[in-house]
């Protein structure tokens, strides 16, 4: 369990105010555009930045408590910190870098083994190399390994992919997924990329201008209207936890089952019964009062209107309940009036497009799904 509650103000007007609890396992994403205060939060958790007031507790150990005057020094916190710019030691070879933190840790406290980390990150062939001879992606993998071998109780990752091009990102993401699944280690992951968040995170803390906008399980947080200024109207949507129900090889389609029904999607590279995440953007959900006939859209789901929130400009956010699952839709205010949409009304949701997570390349549209800068 990670509890963060902190406030700080800096000359120049930047102020940060946030409080959230993250589970003791899995990835918690700190998400928001640049300048939102994401990095400051993990710097405070690492002890690099001291908050004005607040409390930081990791796995029951108090790292910082302004009221009680507790401020554990950086080196005693045992957090693995992966920086955006790697920060490998140029005077040490890759192996020396990897062992730097390991050596500073008592042998009995080393559950994370050198060989296992090297294998996990695929860096065995790099051990004798100097950091400046590595590619950006290799450098970042070594930096992750170095942080892991310091035997941290928490891994902090500050936009570890931001300095990399699309190809390098795609190269590293699978390693991060393996890391998340193989290590029983909580990870705080800073990102301004919704793609990365959706692929990796279980919990989402959304920040805007130093303020916490929302926090909670990714699927729940993402469809909330208050996420709009964080992700932008273009990307607001719903994340559905699904199970692969069947494949239709002839048509190259798969069916995904979720609590509210089934979705037909382009064939996914997963076995039947496997869990996948499907993402439906609010702007890809249209609403009909009666079951549409003669339309090309294949995903038609019966739904009940839960909430209608008119936004500034032409649009309104409509919260639909599909078999107990909340689905965000975005229609024009004109349509709301024409269809007389109101809470309790039975409608049909027409899902025009579904993106299925990770291994489907469509999910990682180049340059897409990124918080607006």
């Amino acid at each position, binding site marked *: 369990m990670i509890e963060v509650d902190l406030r700080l103000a800096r000359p120049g007007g930047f102020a940060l105010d946030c409080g959230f609890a993250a589970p003791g396992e899995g990835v918690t994403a700190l998400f928001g555009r640049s300048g939102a205060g994401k990095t400051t939060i993990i710097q405070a958790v*690492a002890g*690099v930045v001291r908050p004005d007031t607040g409390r930081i507790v990791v796995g029951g150990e108090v790292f910082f408590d302004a009221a009680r005057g507790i401020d554990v*020094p*950086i*080196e005693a*916190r*045992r*957090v*693995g*910190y992966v*920086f955006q*710019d790697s*920060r490998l*030691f*140029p*005077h040490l070879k890759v192996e020396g870098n990897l062992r*730097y*933190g390991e050596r*500073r*840790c008592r042998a009995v406290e080393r559950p994370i083994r050198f060989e296992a980390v090297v294998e996990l990150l695929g860096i065995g062939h790099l051990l004798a190399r*100097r*950091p*400046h001879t590595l590619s950006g992606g290799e450098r970042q993998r070594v930096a992750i390994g*170095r*942080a892991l071998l*310091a035997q941290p109780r928490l891994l902090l990752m500050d936009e570890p992919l931001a300095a990399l091009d699309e190809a390098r990102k795609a190269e590293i993401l699978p390693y991060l997924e393996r890391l998340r699944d193989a290590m029983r280690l909580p990870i705080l992951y800073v990102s301004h990329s919704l793609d990365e968040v959706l692929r990796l995170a279980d919990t989402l803390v959304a920040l805007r201008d130093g303020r916490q906008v929302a926090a909670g399980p990714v699927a729940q947080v993402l469809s909330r209207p208050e996420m709009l200024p964080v992700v932008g109207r273009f990307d607001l949507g719903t994340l559905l936890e699904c199970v692969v129900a069947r494949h239709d090889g002839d048509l190259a389609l798969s069916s995904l089952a979720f609590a509210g029904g089934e979705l037909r999607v382009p064939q996914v590279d997963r076995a039947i019964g496997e869990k996948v995440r499907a993402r439906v953007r609010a702007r890809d959900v249209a609403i009909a009062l009666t079951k549409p006939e003669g339309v090309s859209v294949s995903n038609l789901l019966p739904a009940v209107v839960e909430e209608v929130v008119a936004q500034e400009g032409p649009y309104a956010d409509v919260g639909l309940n599909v078999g107990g699952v909340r689905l965000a839709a975005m229609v024009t205010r004109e349509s709301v009036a024409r269809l007389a949409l109101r809470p309790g009304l039975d409608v049909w949701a027409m899902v025009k497009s579904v993106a299925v997570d990770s291994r489907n390349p469509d999910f990682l549209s180049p340059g897409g799904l990124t918080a607006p800068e």
Partner: protein
Amino acid sequence: MSMLTPEEWTAVTLSLKVAFWATFWSLPLAVLTAFVLARARFPSKSLLDGLVYLPLVLPKVVVGYLLLVSLGARGFLGQYLDAWFGIRLIFTTAGATVAAAVVSFPLTVNAIRLALEAVDRGLETAARTLGASRLDVFFSVTLPLMLPGVLSGALLAIASALGEFGATITFVSNVEGQTRTIPLAIYSATHMPDGDAMALRLTLVSVVLALGSLLLASLVDRRIRVMIGRG
């Protein structure tokens, strides 16, 4: 080296000895001073800054005279050095070493300070998150990364100590075999009726030594930069 007379040879070895030990003893203090000047923040810092660089701009005779009144046999510090530790600096090689160390100190500090300021502090933060204490970080990250600066600073100090004249002759006088380094020997030779040949030979040695240490400095610097991955 049969081209040199025994007297000249004495001056050359003495010069090397003085320059080496002056640098050797002042180096740790120079690293510490550079660290304080580059990193620490305290009210009287500009005063310390000025004090460190003073020997660079003062006439060397003034530096020598200040050493004489402070560390001389009857100097306010010198009398205790003699009484408590039996250390006499006047007319001795130890005194010549002190004079050379004081004069070359600002150059050494400056070279080390520049090297230190070039060290990426983000690397030091990274080292601390990996469990290293501040002292540990200094020896395992900061010092290795500033090593080229420290070594080229040391070689620069040796080169400038080899050329020290004013402070030495004022502080510890011109005693053959004790304080008569190459510059002092040349000075003496120019006062002798047939000293021209000797002065010329020692001048050549001076040029060779100075050039050699500068070349060595740039060679070492390059080798280390490659070694620590900054080439």
